[in-house]
Structures are given as C-alpha cells and as structure tokens.
C-alpha cells in the first residue's frame, strides 16, 4: 500500500504559464462546478471527471488536448483546483506523472486524447506497470455509437492497454463514470501500485448524471493482502536470529510502501547488524552512507553485494522480485540459502526463484512485524558468525570494484558523476532521474542516496527517454528542489521535446548529459558478445546540445576538459532555468563491474582485462 507522504506534498505555488495566458471570459468562472455541493449533484461527464480529480486530491495533470477530450479541457478551463501541464508528447506526459508519483508518493495523473494520444502513452504505461508506479491515465475515446467503426482517431484503447496496465476501464454509461474514476485511483495506488487507464467516450463527457463521491465506493472484488500472517513472521525471525551469513536484499516495494517503510528497513538493518543491499529500484531505502550498506546488487552491482548474495545462508528479500538483472544465472543463484520473500504481490513470489518462506504483505507492515517480534523475543544475532561474515564482506569490499582511473584531460564518466555527487551532497533537496544505458548504471553506482523517493529511473522496462519528462514531474512536485536528469546523448534525444515544457512552466530541471557519442551500453555488449562489430551504435551528426538548449530558450553549458567540469556543474546548479550540460566524456569507457547475462554472481567482470579472460557462454548470448 502506498502511503503518500503528506509533508512532502505541500501545495506547490501556482505558476503562470510563460506564454498564452488564459483569456477567460468572466462568465467562465461563474459557470464553474461548485466543488462544495452535495454528492448527488447533477453535472456533465467532463465536470464529473474534474470533480473526481479534485476529490482525489489531485493537484496536477500532465496532458495533451485533442478532439475527443475537448469537453474535459473545457471543464479544466473553468476551475482552479487542478492544474494542467501541457507536455509535448504523450509519452512524456506519462513519464512526468511517473516522476511526480515516485518523488512524492501520490498518484500521477495523465490526460490524453483518443487514438494517437492513447497509443503514444503506451510506452509510459508499460514503464509504470513494470516499475509498479501509481498512474491514472484518462484517455479520450470516440463517441460510444462510433466505437468499432474505425472513426477518426479511434483506437481500441482498452484492448491495446490491457496487457500494459494494472487494470483499465471503458466507460459506456454516465452512471458508471464517478465510480470508475474513484476505483481507478484505488486500484492504481493500493496493493502493488500500477497504471490504470480510464477510456472516456466523448458523448459520455457531454452526458449529464449524478456525481458520487469517493467515500461511497466499495469494490466488488480486489482485496490486496497487506497484513502479514503472524506465523510467517515468527518463522522469519527464527531464520534470521540463527543466520550465520545473512543478507537483507530490498527493492522498490519498500519505496512504494512509503518513507516509513524505509525507516523500518534501516532500523531492522541496524538492530540486527546484517548487511543490506538494494536493487536499482530500491536505492535510497537504506542510507548509502550507512556502514551496513553494500551498494546496489545485480548485473552492474558491487562485487561485495553480489558475492554476499551468492554466499549467504539466509536471505531476506523485502519488496524485490528476483529480476533477471539481479539473479544472473538462476540455477546458480544463491544456492545455499534459506530465502524469505516479503512481497505485496503473490504472483511475484516463486515466479523466478523458489523461496522457503513467502510473506504476502505490505513491506512496511511486514518489517514492523519482524522488528516487533525480534524485539519482543529479545533476539540477538549470532555475534561470532556475523563478525566472521563481515570480515569476509570487508575482504570483498577491499577489491574496490567501483574504482576507475581519472587521468589526463579527458573526463571519465564515473568522475563526472562523482563530482556531481560531491558538489550536491550537502543539499537536502536533490532529486535524480536518469535515462537508460551506461550513464544510468554509473549514476546508480556513483551517486549516493540517503533517502527514498530521490531516485527515479526506468528499471523494469528500461525506457530511453524517461529521464527528462520524469524530471519535469519531480520538479512539479518539488518546485524549489534541485532536479537533475543524468542522461546519455542518445537517450535524451528520445524525449528532448520536453525541454519546451520545462521552459513553459519555468521548471529549472538540469539535464546532465554524459556525452560519449555512442549508445554506450549497446557498444559494450557488442564488444562483449559480438566481436566488437559496432553495428549502428555510433551516432553521427549529433546536435550541438548547447545550441539545442538555447533553441528551446534554456541554458546550454559544456565541459570538454576535466578542469572545466566543476565550474560547469556549479554553474548548472546555480542557474534558475532549464539547463542542458553537455559533458563530453571518454568515448571508450565501459561500465564495470558486470555480470554478463546468464553468468552466476561469482563470475563478475571487474574490468576490461577481466573481460578478455572470460569468454561468454552461448547460453548467455541469447539472453538480453
């Protein structure tokens, strides 16, 4: 269950759009729906949509207008409670809503038109599904009597989005509209969160009916289990107290369970003295500066985290799903451990890895129960075994798997991120989003997070183009924060149009491009398993990113030399406007350590020399 952190979601100040001010006739406000009217009030479908959004405490909607949703845009025009951010592409709208949701814990809301509006949103919806992000996406639809007739801008939106949403609705009767609107928010935000589409035919938006408030909604089915079974908690505590080589492995489920769950995780780790590793999605749940934290695990995780996973005897998985990027070769995944798996989604349990003790519950509730039980029974870990285990872990740490060699004038990408971290770490308001590729992994490795909800990255789907629109969403939720999209020069071009959105709403997002002129991760794999045949992974004719920023009325900066780096970073931070910082980095650098696809945890490549010694298995080559 996601619990919105109320303190973080303080109402953001109203911003006037830079261009195209509202030229509302005086009468428009007078016809506004009365938000304080009794729940049985008659209104149009479009007014109901706005009323439901207001009742669901929605402050901002990311959207793009079109024929089928014009009635909603008209209703939007006549009220002041819900603000709208006009994106430049519907994919950007969904990623913005995701960034908003992930940074403040509330549901992100999207409004797009029928046909291409809806199909453009599909990538974002799939992204939100894979990463369990609460999003409600309202799509316009052709009028009910035209559905199925191949009408202009018609698409089978519920058909197309069925496999990429947690649930979707097509509203065919005005009587159903208020219920569906409220259900959409319930489904999106409870249990394992996810995207919900509400498809709204245009005639329904004009139809008049009785509004029903959210307090009157009771769902017929759908009851996610959030409380753990006490007996399972007892068994978990017994396993943990007798563990000799324990590890706590936590994921995005802890972040989704709200900031309190992250506090409980930290408390459990400190109470037990166990080592803790986070998945890519879970970074920030455990403060990176804590000595118990081993860093991220998985394909580009740390040596110590992965070897601790391989060698542990008890594994406590909290809100992670044994993704292939984490497990490596399943047959050799942590072969000698008893596995406890806490997940709110029963279908995540025993999907990839058979576990010994499943606990279906909200991560926060389960962690609280374990802590209570541990304290109640006055448990203590096996001290001698634990210190021997830490000694072993420290030996792995001594490998310094994340080290890199910054020599000469050319900026190493890792160094750029290290400097970005060092120059921002004293601030309490830094939010990082990323695109997808090498820069994303370097950011996960070298930027450190002390708090949850500060790290927004496309983990499951791996969507290039995620970072900039997500940063816009984050900045909408935290107007005065420093929001940085750590990007690659290839990814950023996938949603670069959103610079225009950032400028319009005066959102001072920073795009920090590690520009190596290659699709770095593609090239790295081509080196690893395709004999260095760099098929189409080099981008010729890249734009001048400084001029590009200026063209969007933003600010462009560039660093080509290591001596310029700090100045550019400081200038970027200081600038109260959207910035693109083009950091020209070493073209040939690859991302290590790395567990190649299909390899077990102990076969980590620590650097380029290591790679030559360990030829890739054929089994691994067919994996992604």
């Amino acid at each position, binding site marked *: 269950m996601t619990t919105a952190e109320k303190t973080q979601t303080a109402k953001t100040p109203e911003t006037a759009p830079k261009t195209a001010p509202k030229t509302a006739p005086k009468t428009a406000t007078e016809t506004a729906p009365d938000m304080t009217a009794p729940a049985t009030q008659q209104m149009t479908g479009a007014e109901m949509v706005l009323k439901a959004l207001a009742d669901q405490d929605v402050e901002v909607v990311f959207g793009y207008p079109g024929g089928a949703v014009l009635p909603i845009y008209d209703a939007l025009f006549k009220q002041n409670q819900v603000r709208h951010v006009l994106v430049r592409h519907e994919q950007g709208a969904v990623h913005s809503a995701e960034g908003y949701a992930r940074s403040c814990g509330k549901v992100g809301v999207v409004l797009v038109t029928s046909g291409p509006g809806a199909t453009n949103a599909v990538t974002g919806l799939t992204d939100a599904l894979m990463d369990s992000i609460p999003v409600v996406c309202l799509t316009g639809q052709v009028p009910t009597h035209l559905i199925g007739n191949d009408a202009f801008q018609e698409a089978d939106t*519920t*058909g197309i989005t*069925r*496999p990429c949403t*947690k*649930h979707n609705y*097509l509203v*065919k009767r005005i009587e159903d509209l208020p219920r569906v609107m409220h259900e959409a928010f319930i*489904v999106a935000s409870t249990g*394992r969160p996810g995207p919900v589409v509400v498809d709204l035919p245009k005639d329904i938006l004009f139809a008049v009916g009785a509004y029903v408030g959210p307090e009157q909604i009771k*769902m*017929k*089915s*759908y009851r996610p289990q959030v409380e753990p079974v006490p007996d399972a908690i007892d068994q978990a505590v017994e396993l943990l107290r007798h563990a000799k080589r324990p590890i706590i492995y936590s994921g995005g489920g802890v972040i989704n369970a709200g900031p309190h769950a992250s506090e409980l995780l930290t408390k459990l780790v400190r109470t037990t003295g166990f080592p803790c590793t986070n998945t890519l999605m879970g970074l920030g749940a455990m403060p990176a500066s804590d000595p118990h934290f081993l860093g991220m695990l998985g394909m580009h995780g740390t040596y110590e985290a992965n070897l601790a996973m391989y060698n542990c005897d008890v594994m406590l998985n909290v809100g992670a799903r044994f993704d292939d990027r984490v497990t490596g070769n399943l047959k050799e995944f942590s072969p000698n451990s008893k596995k406890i798996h806490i997940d709110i*989604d*029963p*279908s995540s*349990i*025993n*999907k990839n890895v*058979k576990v010994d003790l499943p606990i279906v519950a909200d991560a926060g509730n389960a962690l609280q129960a374990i802590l209570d039980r541990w304290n109640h029974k006055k448990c203590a870990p096996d001290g001698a075994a634990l210190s021997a285990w830490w000694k072993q872990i420290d030996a792995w740490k001594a490998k310094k798997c994340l080290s890199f060699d910054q020599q000469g004038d050319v900026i190493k990408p890792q160094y750029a991120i290290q400097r970005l971290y060092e120059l921002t770490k004293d601030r309490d308001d830094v939010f990082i989003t990323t695109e997808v590729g090498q820069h994303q992994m370097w950011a996960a490795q070298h930027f450190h997070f002390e708090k949850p909800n500060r790290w927004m990255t496309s983990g499951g789907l791996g969507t290039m183009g995620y970072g900039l629109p997500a940063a816009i969403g984050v900045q909408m939720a935290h107007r005065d924060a420093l929001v940085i999209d750590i990007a690659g020069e290839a990814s950023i071009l996938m949603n670069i149009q959103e610079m225009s959105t950032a400028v319009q709403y005066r959102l001072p997002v920073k795009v920090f491009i590690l520009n190596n002129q290659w699709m770095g991760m593609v090239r790295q794999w081509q080196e690893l398993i395709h004999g260095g045949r760099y098929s189409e992974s080099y981008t010729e004719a890249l734009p001048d990113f400084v001029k590009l920023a200026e063209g969007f009325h933003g600010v462009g900066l560039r660093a080509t030399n290591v001596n310029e780096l700090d100045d550019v970073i400081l200038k970027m931070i200081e600038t109260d406007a959207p910035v693109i910082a083009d950091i020209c980095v070493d073209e040939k650098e690859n991302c290590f350590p790395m567990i190649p696809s299909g390899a077990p945890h102990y076969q980590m490549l620590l650097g380029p020399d290591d790679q030559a010694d360990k030829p890739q298995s054929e089994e691994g080559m067919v994996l992604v």
Partner: protein
Amino acid sequence: MSEIETHTIAVVVDNEPGVLARVIGLFSGRGYNIESLTVSEIDEEQSISRITVVTSGTPMVIEQIKAQLERLVPVHYVSDLTLEGSHVERELALIKVRNSGGNRVEALRIADTFRARTLDSTLESFVFEVTGSVKKIDAFIDLMQALGETEVCRTGVVAIMRGEKVASTN
C-alpha cells in the same frame, strides 16, 4: 525439471466486458497453456461468471497461473479443483455423423451404449448429444469417425467439487 501437471481451475469473475479477454490475454501473454476453457454467467443478479480452465505446467507454473489470475481486478477468487481434491468434470459434445446402410445401425447402437441422445436424424445423418468425461467423448468421437464423415462441436470441461465443499478462495 519438475513434471508437467494438468489442473482444472475455476475462476469466478465479475461478468463485465473484457473480462474473458483479460483471462485469455494473461495466458497468451505469459505463454501458459489452455487445454480447455468454458465460461458462462452463474449469477445474473450479481453479474458473476464462472470460468473453468484446464491448463498444464510444472507445479511452479501452475502456482504462477493462479497467482496471476487472482491479481486481475475483476476476479473474485480462483479455486484449483485438482488441488482441492475430488471433483467431477463433464463435457458436452454434439456430433454429426453422415453415413448410410449398416453403419447407421451401428452408430445408433454405439450411441445407445454411450447414452448419447439423438437430437436430429435424416436419412443420411444423425446428430448425437453426448455428455461425460473428456475421455468418454474422445472415445465416442473415435468410433463415430470410423462410421462416416463427422462434424464435432464440444463445450470444453466444466467441473465442480464432490461432497459438501464449495469452491472459494484457497
């Protein structure tokens, strides 16, 4: 690898548009098998349907299938009848056989042994209705095929638990 098992699963759902597509989409999208699937409304007032699906896979896959089905919003509960124990399974088939002469007599005789009802008859054809286990219907069709040109239509399996126990959340 674990052995492949066949399970009969009852899925009780809200009878709303698209619910069958959700169930079928889940099976095709995740690569699960459907050996048979039947669906019909069982409670008109509450608008509830019951889907009976026969599927196969390793025990881990079967667990996944049930967990994935339970996750669908309009699903009320999923009951694994194979796991719950003793249950009865029945299927209904309509079989048309076109033949003449002695084969017609033989077809009627066999239909009688299988307790099949004759729903329609002409001088050149019969339509039989037969109810029973999948195996029984397979056997009946095999015999009819030997006696003439056939056309077959089957409902797929419906199943219910024996005894006083009723299907509900596992």
